[in-house]
């Protein structure tokens, strides 16, 4: 049980090992805050989609299982979006289209196919939370460095003192652009691989 939770955080991380969900990792990580909210939303969606599919697993006809999964995920994402709009309007405004894009996040479908269809609800829930957090972990690491080096800020607050700018330091505009997210993800993979060798 512990492994189901811990594996996706490191040894079987959905982003760095399975190479899933890279595209949303590029889109929402130019700042730390959207990265955090995205991580949370994906975790909620994967966890609950896993539970629902796991509960239904013995009734789902094999031939239309992907469609069933898609409907469950799409419904959950729509509900999350509506709830954010009603109770966390500012956050929903910031994430806007990316919430809808959770539907197409390969991690969600991947976990439903690979785990929830063959396992009981509780392990599926743990698996969903684990994978959501594993994804979120990478998002937060990448978001941290991109905002720090790209805007000199964290969560919108300036953290690099003016003194350093006077000495000639400049924010790296490249960090804000999507390609640098790929480079940073690659660096994370590099560190992880050489550590776990």
């Amino acid at each position, binding site marked *: 049980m512990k492994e189901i939770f811990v594996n996706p955080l490191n040894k079987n991380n959905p982003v760095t090992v399975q190479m899933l969900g890279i595209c949303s990792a590029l889109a929402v990580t*130019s700042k730390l805050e959207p990265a955090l909210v995205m991580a949370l939303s994906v975790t909620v969606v994967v966890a609950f989609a896993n539970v629902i599919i796991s509960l239904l697993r013995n009734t789902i*006809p*094999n031939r239309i299982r992907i469609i*069933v999964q898609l409907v469950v995920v799409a419904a959950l994402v729509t*509900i999350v979006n509506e709830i954010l*709009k009603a109770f966390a*309007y500012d956050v929903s405004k910031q994430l806007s*289209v990316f919430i809808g894009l959770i539907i197409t996040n390969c991690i969600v479908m991947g976990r439903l196919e690979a785990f929830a269809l063959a396992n009981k609800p509780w392990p599926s829930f743990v698996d969903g939370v684990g994978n959501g957090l594993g994804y979120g972990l990478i998002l937060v690491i990448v978001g941290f460095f991109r905002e720090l080096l790209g805007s000199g800020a964290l969560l919108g607050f300036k953290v690099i003192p003016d003194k350093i700018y006077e000495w000639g330091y400049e924010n790296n*505009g490249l960090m804000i652009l999507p390609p640098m997210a790929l480079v940073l993800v690659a660096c994370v993979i590099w560190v992880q691989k050489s550590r776990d060798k």
Partner: protein
Amino acid sequence: MQKEKNTYILIYASVMVVLVALILAYVSDALHPQQAKNEAIDKMRQMLSSLNIVSGNKNAESLYNATITDSYLINSEGDKVEGDAFATDLAAEWQKPLAERSYPVFEASVAGDKKYILSLRGAGLWGPIWGFISLDEDKKTVFGASFGHEGETPGLGAEIDKPAFAHAFSGKKIFDPEGRFTSIAIVKPGKTAEGKDYVDGISGGTITSRGVDAMLYSSLEFYVPYLIK
């Protein structure tokens, strides 16, 4: 009943779709009043922000009521027409022929001075962008501005909704000294625009910046007959 039979699959899919539709309809219906309220408050905050007044979700409504003194619609001739200015959706107005359009004008009083708030709407990189621009009593000089967007890239185009970008508009003029309408240009940082006032765009957010430029021109153009009256 066998799971892989066509009848089972058909029934399964139909029941699932109907159930999901019911749930979504219920959620959407139940949350709608709260969402509509959020949207109205958000709009008030943006309008207050264009007057350089910072407001929170809690005090937006009372500040709005205290600041905005009058609101009305104007047509393409610059004459006042009947209608609810706050509820007017510029996106819908755009679809109409020019002669039937009506744009909202809000009059506000800031520290005793009369200001006019005009509504803007245009297209960014990924979706619609909008904004409010407030003019001094001379109807030429910008007092403040605020911008919003649906889904511009965070850190790049999305920066248009930050005060840092909007504040640059204060004091700019939308008419040249001869009284011709020029709008305000958005230029690449470091560049200049000839014959009109300009503001630096967002580095890396070129298409969104261009969108703001086009939005200012096309939206303000409609107000010109009203402004020169």
